[in-house]
C-alpha cells in the first residue's frame, strides 16, 4: 500500500493520488481531517522497532507494516474537539505534533518528504539557511540581508540586482533524484539534485531565475511545491518508484 498524506485543500496531492490510481498503484488518500479524526491509535516503540496502526472513522486501517511508500505533505493537525476550547488545547496540540512526528518517522521508505522536528513534511528552513545550501549546491544567489530592525528582508546590493534583472523565472520540482518541470541544463539539474540532498528533502520545489548572462540563480525553495507543474512524467516516476519498492 502507498499513502498520500496531505492537508485537505492540497490539490497537488489529490492529483498525485488520482494519477497513481490510473497507473494501478495501490494507494490510500488520507487527508489531515480524516487522520486527526481517527478512532483508534496504536503506536509502539521498543526494542523490536516501531510501528503504527491508525483506525480511521471510515473503516480503513493504516498499518505502517503494510506501507511501501508515502507522499507526505501533512502540514498541520487538529486536536480532538474536546480540547478545542479548553486550557488543554495547546498541550493537546503539542502532544499530537509529537505523536505525528514519531509515527511519520516510523513509516518505511520511501517517504517524500521524511518528517523532521522542523516540519512534519520536511525541514522548514530560514531563508539564509536555504541561501547557504543553494550556494553549496552550486547555484548563484542574490545578496541578502535580514535585520531585526526592519520588517522585511532586502537585497543588500539593490543597485546590482536592479542593473542585472533576471531574464526569466522558472520553477522545477525535484522528486527522488529527478528534476521535473521547466527545461533546465544538466548542470542546473545536477545542482537542484544536490540541493535536494543537502536539504534532506526528496521532494523539493525550486524557483530559479536565469540572469542576463545565462546563469541560473536560486530564488526560493518550497517543501510543498505544486506537483501538477511537473506533469505526467512525475507520476510515472513515482509509480515506478513505488512498484520497484513493492517488489523489494
Amino acid at each position, binding site marked *: 500500500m502507498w499513502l498520500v498524506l496531505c492537508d485537505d485543500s492540497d490539490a497537488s496531492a489529490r492529483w498525485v493520488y488520482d494519477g497513481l490510481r490510473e497507473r494501478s498503484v495501490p494507494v490510500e488518500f488520507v487527508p489531515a481531517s480524516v487522520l486527526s479524526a481517527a478512532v483508534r*491509535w496504536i503506536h509502539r*516503540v521498543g526494542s523490536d522497532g516501531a510501528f503504527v496502526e491508525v483506525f480511521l472513522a471510515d473503516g480503513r486501517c493504516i498499518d505502517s507494516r503494510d506501507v511501501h511508500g508515502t507522499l507526505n505533505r501533512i502540514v498541520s493537525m487538529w486536536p480532538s474537539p474536546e480540547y478545542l476550547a479548553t486550557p488543554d488545547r495547546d498541550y493537546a496540540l503539542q502532544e499530537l505534533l509529537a505523536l505525528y*512526528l514519531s509515527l511519520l518517522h516510523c513509516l518505511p521508505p520511501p517517504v517524500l518528504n521524511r518528517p523532521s*522536528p522542523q516540519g512534519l513534511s520536511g525541514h522548514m528552513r530560514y531563508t539564509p539557511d536555504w541561501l547557504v545550501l543553494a550556494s553549496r549546491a552550486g547555484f548563484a544567489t542574490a545578496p541578502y540581508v535580514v535585520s531585526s530592525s526592519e520588517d522585511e528582508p532586502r537585497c543588500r546590493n539593490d543597485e546590482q540586482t536592479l542593473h542585472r534583472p533576471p531574464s526569466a523565472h522558472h520553477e522545477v520540482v525535484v522528486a527522488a533524484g529527478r528534476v521535473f518541470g521547466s527545461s533546465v541544463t544538466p548542470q542546473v539539474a545536477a545542482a537542484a539534485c544536490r540541493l535536494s540532498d543537502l536539504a534532506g528533502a526528496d521532494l523539493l520545489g525550486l524557483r530559479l531565475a536565469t540572469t542576463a548572462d545565462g546563469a541560473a540563480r536560486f530564488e526560493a525553495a518550497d517543501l510543498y511545491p505544486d506537483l501538477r507543474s511537473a506533469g505526467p512524467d512525475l507520476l510515472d516516476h513515482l509509480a515506478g518508484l513505488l512498484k520497484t519498492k513493492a517488489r523489494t
Partner: protein
Amino acid sequence: MILLCGIPSEPPLAMVRRRLEEGGSECVVLNQREVADADLEICVVAGRVTGRLTMRGQAYALEHIDGVYLRLMDDRFLPEVRKEAADSPVRAHSRRVHETLLAWTEIASARVVNRPSAMGSNASKPYQAQLIRDSGFDIPETLITNDPDLVAEFRQRWGRLIYKSMSGVRSIIRVLDDDAAAKLDAIRWCPVQFQRYVEGTDVRVHTVGTQVFATSISSDAPDYRYAERDTGRAANLAPLDLPDDIAERCTALAADLGLAVSGIDLRRTPGGRYVCFEVNPCPVFSYYETGTGQEISAAIAAFLSGV
C-alpha cells in the same frame, strides 16, 4: 569572542560565563531581558555569512564570534514582553531579534551549543526514542494509544507502567497506579504515552564533545527531579565511571543528533544493562555540577573557546 544568550543570572549561563572569564575569554552577553536594546543583522553573499549584533550602542561583527551558548527562554514569556499587546512594537521587535538569532545560529561558522535544529528531536520523545534505538541503546517498551483496553493489556504484560507526555510540555513522569488506571477512559480524546517501568539506578550523562560526565542518582521517586516534593527526600548524586562502550555510545548518540552538549538520561538495570530514556539538548547541568563537583561548565567553556 564568545556570545552567551539568555538570562545572565540563570545558573548554567552564569557558570559558563564565569569559567570563560576565568580563562581569559572575551564574552558578550545577549541578555534577553534587554532585547529591546538589541538588534541583529545577517548578510548572506555567495554563501558567506556575515552580520552585526548591536547592544547598548555597541556593535559586534558576527564573523568575529567564535562560540555561541544558547540558553534562551521562550521570549513570549519574558517579563518585558508578556504583558505587551499582540501587535505591540516591543513584542514584534523581540520576536524579530530572536528569529534572526535562531536563523544565524543555524548557519554560523562559530561553535554553537546547540544549533536550534539539533535541539528539535526532544520535542517528540517517541521520535527521539527511535533515533536513540538506532544508535544502539536499549529503550523502554512504549505504547502510545487512546485505547484503555490496550493499556490494560500492556500493564498486564509488563507490570508496573509509567506515563508521561510525548512532547516537551508538562514533562513529568507518573506511575500508572490503580487510581490512574481507573481514569483511563479519559485517554480516548487524546493518545497518551505509556512505558514499561525500568528498575534500576538513574544515570545522567552530560556529553561535551567527546568528554563524558556521568552522575549516578539515588532516589525512591519515579522522577528524581521531584524527589523532595514527592518523597520528602532529595535525590543523592554521585560521580560515576561509565563502561567505555557506554561512554562511547553516549558521545556517538550526541554526535548523531548534532549536539555539541547533551544531557542523556540512562538507567542501569540490576543486570547491568543501560536503558536510555531521552536526550536533553539544553541540559540544566548546574544541578549535577553543584551536586558532584564535576566540572561540566569548564568543559563547555573550553569547547566554546576551541581549547
